[in-house]
C-alpha cells in the first residue's frame, strides 16, 4: 500500500506506469486506501477463509479435518435448511414490500408537502436507535399479557394477539419491527432520488393538467427507477441477513417459526460448534443473494435511466 503513496511523490520514468501516475489516479488510490485495507483485512480474507472452512469439519477448538463436499451434500438434504430458507423468504417479502411502499409514500410526502426539517428528522429517528434497543422496545410493547399494544387492542375490542409468541404471527411481527426502524431511512434514500428529477417535468405535467396521482405514476415512479433499484438491492440484501432483531426477541422460536437463515448459521456456529457446516450455509446464502441481486439488476434495468 505504501507504494501507491510513494508513487505520487516520485514523478516517474517508466512509460507503462504513466496512466497510473497522473495526479488524479494517485489521489484516487489515496482516498480508497483506508477502506481498501479494511475491505481486504475484514472482508476479502475472511470470505476466502470461510470458503475453505466450508470444506472442513471444525469445532473451533480442535484441529479441523478436510471433508470435501460432505457439508454441501448434507445441506441439500437438510430439510431444516430449506425450512429456514422459506421462513427467510417470507420475511423478506413482507419486509421489503411494505417497507418500500411506505418509504416511497413518505419520500413523496417529504418532497411535496412536509418541508419542515423537524418532521423530516422525526421520520428517520427510529433508524438512529440501535437494533437491540428497538428489539427490546417492541418485545415489551408486543408482549401478549403485559404489552401496551395488547392493552390498546383489548380496549378497542379486537382482543389480545400473541404476536412474537405465536408461530403464525412471529415473523410478521419481526418484519414490522424492522419496517418501523428502516422505513424512514429508506425514505431518505428515495427522497434523495426525487431531488434528481428535474422540476420542469413536473411543471409540464401540471400545465397539461395532470393530477397528483397521474403525475406520480407517470413521472415520479419511472424517473425514480434507477434509485429504486439501488434501494431495493441494498434493502433486500439487508433483509435476507436479518439477525439481531430475532436474537433479541424470539431466538428463532417459537417452534422454529423465526429461524431465519442467519440465525440457523449462528445456531450451528455458536450453539453446536459446527463451524464447517455453518460456513457452508453462509456460502449458500451468498450464492442466493448473488442470484437475487443479479435478477433484480437485470429485470429493473439498473444501468439505464429514462431521463
Amino acid at each position: 500500500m505504501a507504494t501507491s503513496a510513494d508513487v505520487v511523490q516520485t514523478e516517474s520514468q517508466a512509460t507503462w506506469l504513466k496512466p497510473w501516475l497522473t495526479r488524479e489516479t494517485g489521489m484516487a488510490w489515496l482516498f480508497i486506501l483506508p477502506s481498501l485495507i479494511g475491505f481486504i483485512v475484514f472482508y476479502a480474507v475472511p470470505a476466502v477463509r470461510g470458503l475453505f472452512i466450508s470444506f472442513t469439519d471444525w469445532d473451533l477448538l480442535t484441529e479441523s479435518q478436510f471433508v470435501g463436499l460432505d457439508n454441501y451434500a448434507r445441506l441439500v438434504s437438510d430439510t431444516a435448511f430449506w425450512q429456514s430458507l422459506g421462513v427467510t423468504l417470507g420475511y423478506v417479502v413482507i419486509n421489503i414490500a411494505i417497507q418500500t411502499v411506505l418509504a416511497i409514500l413518505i419520500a413523496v410526502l417529504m418532497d411535496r408537502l412536509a418541508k419542515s426539517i423537524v418532521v423530516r428528522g422525526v421520520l428517520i429517528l427510529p433508524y438512529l436507535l440501535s437494533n437491540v434497543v428497538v428489539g427490546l422496545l417492541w418485545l415489551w410493547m408486543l408482549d401478549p399479557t403485559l404489552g401496551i399494544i395488547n392493552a390498546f387492542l383489548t380496549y378497542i375490542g379486537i382482543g389480545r394477539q400473541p404476536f412474537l409468541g405465536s408461530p403464525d404471527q412471529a415473523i410478521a411481527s419481526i418484519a414490522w419491527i424492522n419496517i418501523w426502524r428502516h422505513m424512514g431511512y429508506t425514505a431518505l434514500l428515495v427522497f434523495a432520488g426525487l431531488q434528481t428529477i428535474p422540476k420542469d417535468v413536473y411543471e409540464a405535467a401540471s400545465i397539461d393538467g395532470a393530477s397528483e396521482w397521474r403525475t406520480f405514476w407517470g413521472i415520479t415512479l419511472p424517473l425514480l427507477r434507477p434509485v429504486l433499484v439501488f434501494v431495493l438491492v441494498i434493502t433486500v440484501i439487508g433483509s435476507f441477513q436479518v439477525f439481531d432483531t430475532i436474537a433479541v426477541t424470539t431466538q428463532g422460536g417459537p417452534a422454529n417459526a423465526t429461524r431465519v437463515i442467519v440465525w440457523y448459521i449462528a445456531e450451528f456456529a455458536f450453539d453446536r460448534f459446527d463451524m464447517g457446516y455453518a460456513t457452508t450455509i453462509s456460502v449458500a446464502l451468498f450464492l442466493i443473494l448473488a442470484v437475487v441481486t443479479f435478477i433484480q439488476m437485470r429485470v429493473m434495468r439498473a444501468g439505464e435511466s429514462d431521463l
Partner: protein
Amino acid sequence: MKTKQSFVVLISLLAMLSLILVACGGGDAAPSNDSGDSAAASDSSGEAVELTYALWDSAQQPAYEACATEFQKDHPNISIKIEQSGWDDYWSTIQTGMVAGNAPDVFTDHLAKYPEFAEKGQIVDIQPLVEQDDVPTDIYIGELADLWTRDGKRYGLPKDWDTIAIFYNKAMLEKAGIDPAVMNDWTWNPKDGGTFEETIAQLSIDANGNNGLSPDFDKDNVVQYGFIHGGQGNGYGQTQWSWMAVPNGFKFQDELWGDKFHYDDPKLAETLEWYHGLMEKGYAPPYPDVKSLGGAALFQAEKGAMTSEGSWNIKNYVDNSNFEVGFGKLPIGPEGRKSMFNGLADSIYIGSEHQAEAWEWVKFLSSQTCQDIVGEYAVVFPAIQSGVDKALAAHEANGLDVSAFTEQALDPEGTFLFPVADNASEITTIMAQTEEQIYLGQTDDVAGTLKAANDEVNALFQ
C-alpha cells in the same frame, strides 16, 4: 458505465459474503497446553498477579467480592478481577475466549457445559492438584463432588447446589382461602393432576370471578392463572417438568455420562401432555404468553398464583415482587417427591497463564471459609453444610421460610441428578424445538414427536 456498475455490484456482493462469514471465521485453534500438570501449586511466588474470575449471576457477585477480599489477606500478591455477564452472553464470552486464547482464568461452570469443555481440552484436570494438596472432597453435600469427575479426572470443586420448589403469591392463596399447608401433602399424577391440579384450578380465576373448578369457568378470559409455567425446558426441564416426569418413572439416561437418552419414554410423553393440558384448560398461560418475557415476569406482574422455580431465584423473586412470596414443597408424584439436584463448580481455563494462582483461588472458593461467606449473602445454598446453615440463618432473619428447598435436598430419596452427558449443546437445541412444538399444540402425537427427537439425540452418540 455498465462495467463500472458490475464492479460495484461485485464489490458489494463480496462485502456481504464476508459480513456473513467474518463472524464465523475468527481465530485459530486455542493454545495446546495439554494438561494442568505444569501448574505446580508451590510456585506461587510473590510476583503480583491478576486473575480473572467469571460468573453469570449478578446477585452472587457481592458474595464473591467478599470472598476475594478474604482470599487476598493470605495471598497479597494475587488480585481477583470479577467479570459478570448474563447467562447467554456468559457462555458465548467463555467460548469465544477459549478460541481466542483469553478466556477467564477461573470461571463458574455448569453441568450442562463442562463435558464439552473437558472433551475439547479446555479446562484443567485438577485431580493431581487435589491429591498433591490433600484437598478433602468428601466435605460436600451428597454426590456434588462426583458430578465433576469422569474416568478419574476432576474438572471442578463444588461451590453450591440447588433444588426446585413451588413459589407462590401469598395474597392470592389467602384470597382463595387456601392454606399453604396443603403443599405438605399434595399429590400429582399425569391422569387427573391430583390435588396439585385441584389447587391450581381453584387459583385460576376468569373475568367473571369463576374459578377453574366451576363449570362456568371461561378459559379464554382468564385474569389470574393458577400456575405459571416456565416455558420450555431445553430438554432438561429442570424447573419446568423434571420434578413431575422423574417421579412419574421417567429417566433421562441410565447413568451419568450415559450415551443413551430415554426421551421416548411414554412416562415423559404423558407428563408433557398434562403440562400442555394446563395451558389448554386455561389454568396456565398459553405458551406464547411466556415465550417472550418468561414466566418470572408474569408471576411478578401478579398474573398467576404459583410457579415452579429453583432455589437460586429466591432472592430475585423476593426482591422483584411487590407482594409476599412463599415457598412450598413440590407435589408428591407416583414415585414420591423428587427434585433435580444440581450444583455448580469453578473450573480453571487451560490457557490461563497463572494456573498455580488459579488453583489457589479455586481451592479457596471451595473451602469452608468462602462458602460460609457466600452463605451469609443468602443467594444460593453453598455446597458445604456450614455454609447452608449460614444461608438458612440469613433467610430466617429476612423472614423467609426456605425449608422446602433444604428438606428436599436432605431427603435421601428426594433428589435426582442433572443428566451429565456429552453433546449437551446439540441435545438442548433439538429438545428445545421439540418441547415448543408440543406446548404450541403443533403435534397430536406427543409420544411420536418425542420418539423422533430421541432418535435424533441418540444418533449424536453414534
